[in-house]
């Protein structure tokens, strides 16, 4: 296949590491799996260390305990400020996906290919969020209210607007996952183009671009993903009177 001469060194695609046969289907273990495993190992190690530090927590906290308490407080405060009274039920989920997505996004700094630059990672994240949104809706609202919401601009005995509302419901996970995926992928592709095309010229100074594409953009997208999740969930909960 005839590639351009310039693009021979550029490489930001997902590679297969090895292949095995799963009930007759060839299944590839790719670089995404390896990177996500590294991210998970680091996070699990951090979690175990944090657990030990908190379990042996001192009255006057040491450095590590201080950092852990700061992280938990900030995450809980973020959930509190946007979900109100329903917040305590969602501390765990929002905090978990925040830390996971944040570390996945900035793992480009460690030389990994960011796992979130693979649509197979961001789509499940968005689907978990989506099922959580739907579950909250069914838990906190009556079926009658859900039906009225579904036919929303028109009266509920005239459901011609319902298909459009359904489509806009289904668009939620797609746009959530594509936003995260495309942002991280664009950073990865841009850095790969830079390193691939400039060769030895790209020494030291691309660090500034790494700060933008990996740290800033990654953190913003993490924040946006979590904020949108919380906004959707608190929209569906409504006033929060449990039926």
């Amino acid at each position, binding site marked *: *296949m*005839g590639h*351009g001469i310039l693009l021979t060194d550029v490489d930001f*695609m997902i590679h297969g590491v090895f292949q095995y046969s799963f009930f007759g289907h060839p299944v590839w273990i790719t670089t995404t799996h390896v990177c996500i495993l590294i991210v998970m190992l680091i996070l699990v190690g951090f979690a175990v260390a944090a657990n030990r530090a908190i379990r042996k927590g001192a009255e006057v906290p040491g450095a590590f305990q201080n950092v852990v308490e700061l992280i938990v407080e900030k995450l809980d405060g973020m959930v509190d400020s946007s979900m109100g009274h329903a917040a305590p039920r969602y501390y765990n989920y929002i905090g978990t996906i925040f830390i996971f997505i944040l570390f996945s996004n900035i793992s480009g700094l460690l030389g990994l290919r960011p796992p979130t630059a693979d649509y197979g990672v961001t789509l499940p994240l968005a689907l978990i969020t989506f099922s959580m949104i739907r579950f909250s809706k069914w838990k906190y609202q009556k079926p009658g209210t859900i039906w009225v919401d579904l036919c929303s601009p028109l009266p509920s005995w005239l459901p011609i607007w319902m298909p459009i509302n359904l489509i806009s419901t289904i668009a939620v996970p797609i*746009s959530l996952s*594509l*936003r995260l995926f*495309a*942002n991280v*992928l*664009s950073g990865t*592709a841009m850095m790969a183009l830079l390193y691939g095309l400039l060769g030895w010229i790209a020494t030291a100074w691309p660090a500034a671009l790494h700060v933008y594409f990996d740290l800033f953009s990654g953190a*913003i*997208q993490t*924040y*946006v993903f979590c*904020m*949108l999740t919380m906004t959707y969930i608190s929209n569906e909960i409504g006033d929060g009177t449990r039926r």
Partner: protein
Amino acid sequence: MDFNENFILGCSAIGAGLAVIAGIGPGVGQGIAAGHAAAAVGRNPGASGEIRSMMLLGQAVAETTGLYGLLVAILLLFVHPLLP
């Protein structure tokens, strides 16, 4: 009709270039959002933290359409969906 590979690759490159024109819209939209956020901070400097987070959220949502164009461009350039 059959075209040779180089013709298809060249047309894919032109299509990718046209697809990232989608970046104009989010640029204008994010600029408007940032301008209004600056005006809001000028009016009420005490609420700057909340305004900043709301601005970032709105800008990131507005960015999505541009990113769809970018995705199409990347698919055209590196995945070659049009090649037989």
